[in-house]
């Protein structure tokens, strides 16, 4: 198992019982795309469509890998390492 830190903000924390930061053990050799699917299945109890569409993150959600935009790290193909901090920030804010 690989230990990662997951951060949710911009309203996404409402999908994980209001928790903005979670330390989780995830399966080894997981890519970021796999992590998204794992989060959808294991952490989010309802309104899954607000987080992802299968293994693809919902449009409007910014993903950071150790505070770096995931586009610079290979997006879904990035291989998770122990201690990585993955942040999911919603850019949608209603109102």
């Amino acid at each position, binding site marked *: 198992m690989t230990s990662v830190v997951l951060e949710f903000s911009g309203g996404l924390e409402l999908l994980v019982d209001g928790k903005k930061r979670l330390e989780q053990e995830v399966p080894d050799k997981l890519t970021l795309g796999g992590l998204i699917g794992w989060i959808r299945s294991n952490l989010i109890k309802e309104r899954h469509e607000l987080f992802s569409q299968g293994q693809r993150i919902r*449009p409007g959600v910014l993903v950071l890998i150790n505070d770096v935009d995931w586009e610079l790290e290979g997006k879904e193909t990035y291989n998770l390492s122990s201690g990585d901090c993955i942040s999911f920030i919603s850019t949608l804010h209603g109102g």
Partner: protein
Amino acid sequence: MERKCGKCKTEEGIVWTTDGARCEDCFCVVTMHSVKTILSRNKLAMFKSRICVSSNPPSTSSAALMAVLDECLKPGPKRKASRMSFEVIVLHVRLPMELFGSGEKGKESMESLAKLYGFQFQEVQLEESIVTSLKAIRDLDDRIDLVQGAVRSSLIQKTKAMECSVLLVSPNATDLAVDVMAKTIKGRGGAIPDEVSPAMEYASVKIGRPFIELTARHVTRYSRLRKVDKYAVSTEFFNSPDSSLTRIAEKFVLQLQEMQPSTSTTVLRTAAKLRKNEAAMLCPACASRDVLIGRGADRVGRSRGSEDTHPLCAVCTEKDMNMSGETVVDLARAFCRATVNEFTLDTEEQE
């Protein structure tokens, strides 16, 4: 992907943009430059003026707007004092959850951020009768529009009461693009030309949109770098993506933006071209650019061998049309809504 900042070429890039990777400093410089350009071109932050800033909704955009204004007031690296000097008053209309608000939580969050920057904070209350009436509206789209209108009116009234003539609002390019699409769908296109301008005059108050050139992603990233994203209180998750036309339009725009990152700014620039200009007609060649008619108009494209003048836009005029007079007339008839006969020559020019 290339990780060095594409601007300074020295630091490690941490922010992805359509122009390549950017380091934190270069990204913030770009953001500040965009905002300062909007403020100065539209005279939104005059020296020693008082400006009101809306913190509705209490989102990352609102938090980022306060952070940007704070940065504007700081001296630059080579200056002892900032070129800009103005007083900021943050206004917040507290809305209940049923009216897409965040209640007390949103107000407290924005107030604490305003205090952090030393800005004055004023709460604006909606009249109870208005709140009751708005809550009674069943249609979600109607409620969204009327709440927006009520919030705007309240903010403008408060701005006037504070003896300010400028109100800055936080919607970014993505928000406005969604608004344009939603208004088009709802048949409220008349308001679009004003809604997509960087500044508009409304009831003697100038409403400025400093983030009009920046997407939601850009603003969110900036607020993360400035560490003000924690002050944002999202209300988005109270409604499902298909609950209203506005939310559906949002979904549409965001999906397009995934494929084409410039979607929001393109929608706004195209929408900004919508205007009723009685003194203009479409260029008969390209049918997309305006050509002014009447006194002092741009009279170009005199067709060869013909006494009539067929106005072409400046761009088409410069093209090597290589056409005879008859072909230009055919083109005009094919493309232009106004016929050649409707175009009347200025009598002085005829002579």
